[in-house]
């Protein structure tokens, strides 16, 4: 109720763009396609996003912020590191099932089209900062509590996120024989066992 119509329309553009990119592919989808789906003129569309490139980068920030907020909620809970791992895996897989366009965009567009995202707009980890920051908080807390082994950040990050991304990719390709949620327990166990203090 307190949200302005402009914000709502911006969110509409975002969700419509994600759906179209998922259905038709990133390069094939045009601004007029998205504008038509939202029900606005192309001219008006440019009031919200000045170009497809800018939209592409904003989408990464949007998804990272969404994921970051979800992980922040888990980080702030007074539960064990092991339970936090399970909660993060569960949240990530739930998003893959119920909101697949978001993670698909991340894996298939952001990670796979570096030429779109480099060159200033999304240098380094700039656009994924909200997400990475929360993982840093998770790792820092885990080591501080004496539960996780102290090691290089990227070694741990790669293990956690590479694993989850890989599983979601296989899920998207319909290669997994079982429903995604049936993998949650074993995957959480694998991650925790790999990262914990021995």
């Amino acid at each position, binding site marked *: 109720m307190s949200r302005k119509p402009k914000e709502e329309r911006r969110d509409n553009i975002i969700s419509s763009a994600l759906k179209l990119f998922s259905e038709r592919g990133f390069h094939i989808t045009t601004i007029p396609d998205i504008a038509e789906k939202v029900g606005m003129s192309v001219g008006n569309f440019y009031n919200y996003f000045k170009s497809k490139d800018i939209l592409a980068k904003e989408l990464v920030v949007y998804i990272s912020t969404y994921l970051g907020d979800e992980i922040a909620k888990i980080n702030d809970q007074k539960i064990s590191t092991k339970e936090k791992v399970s909660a993060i895996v569960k949240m990530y897989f739930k998003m893959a099932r119920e909101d697949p366009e978001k993670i698909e965009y991340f894996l298939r567009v952001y990670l796979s089209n570096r030429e779109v995202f480099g060159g200033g707009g999304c240098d380094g*980890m700039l656009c994924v*900062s909200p997400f990475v*920051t929360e993982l840093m908080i998770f790792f*820092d807390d885990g080591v501080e509590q004496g539960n*996780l082994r102290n090691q*290089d950040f*990227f070694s741990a990050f790669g293990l956690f996120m590479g694993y989850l991304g890989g599983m979601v990719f296989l899920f998207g390709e319909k290669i997994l024989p079982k429903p995604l949620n049936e993998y949650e327990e074993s995957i959480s166990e694998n991650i925790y066992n790999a990262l914990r203090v021995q």
Partner: protein
Amino acid sequence: MPYASSEKKPALIWLQGVTCNGNSHSFLNLPYLPQLLEKYEIIYHPLLEGTSTLHELVLNKAECDVLIFEGAYDPLMKRHNVSLKDIVTHYAGLAKYIIAAGSCASFGGMFKASAPERNTGLILNESEPQGPLLVIKQKVINLSGCPIHPEWLGFTLTMIADNREIPVDELNRPIELYSRLAHHGCTRNEYFEWKVDSKAFGLKEGCLFYEQGCRGPMTHASCNHILWNEVNSKTRAGTPCFGCTEPDFPRKNLFTTKTNMSIPVDIPVGISKRSYLALAGVAKTFHIKRLEGKLIDEKRNN
């Protein structure tokens, strides 16, 4: 109003507990020391000429308006067979101002380590209120540092001689000297901003916070504002600050930055970890060519 030359100069006594003399040595480097000492009557100082001998002092035969205490307080220590406790308590009672010169006298510091269960500062044991002068802590000014910069003491003594009030912080340190962080004024601030780390001491380039254990962003001190020997500071020269003005000095594992999964455990004072990591995490992944080599080479190669 500054004292008139016909008024009696304040009587100053400089006493030592368990000390290395570092603060006395530092004080001798004050450029305007002769003029400053003109404002006082030096009753006793371990290195400078005074009107009283230490022996006379311990027999309680001297006046005292300003008591400076250097070194950790050891309750079992004796000077000329008189317990330090008695000497300190007596002169602290007479004095209008008491200055703890250095981190040992302020918090226990380095020489607390020689007898950790009994050595303390004058009013603080690290950050806990404890010490021989705790009941009169309102008279005590802590000038923490290892050693203190001569100007910190010069400032304090000038203010006292001029009858000026010296507002202090929660650790009794003058806020005019201890509001800044050692971080403020460090010449490496661009490297701090973009998280470009120095790989060794003594290099002109790079920030010392992330890998070399610099405590600058967590330490209250004026070192990069009032320069040492009027020209330099630790961090400018390429040595990390080791936080000598704070109650937890000395720490273990100096010159290493403690990290959890490459994330610094201690971050700049007053900043939330989330905020710090959001900025630092991003900055660390950038590559700014100009900041990756020697600064001079960028110009030389043009």
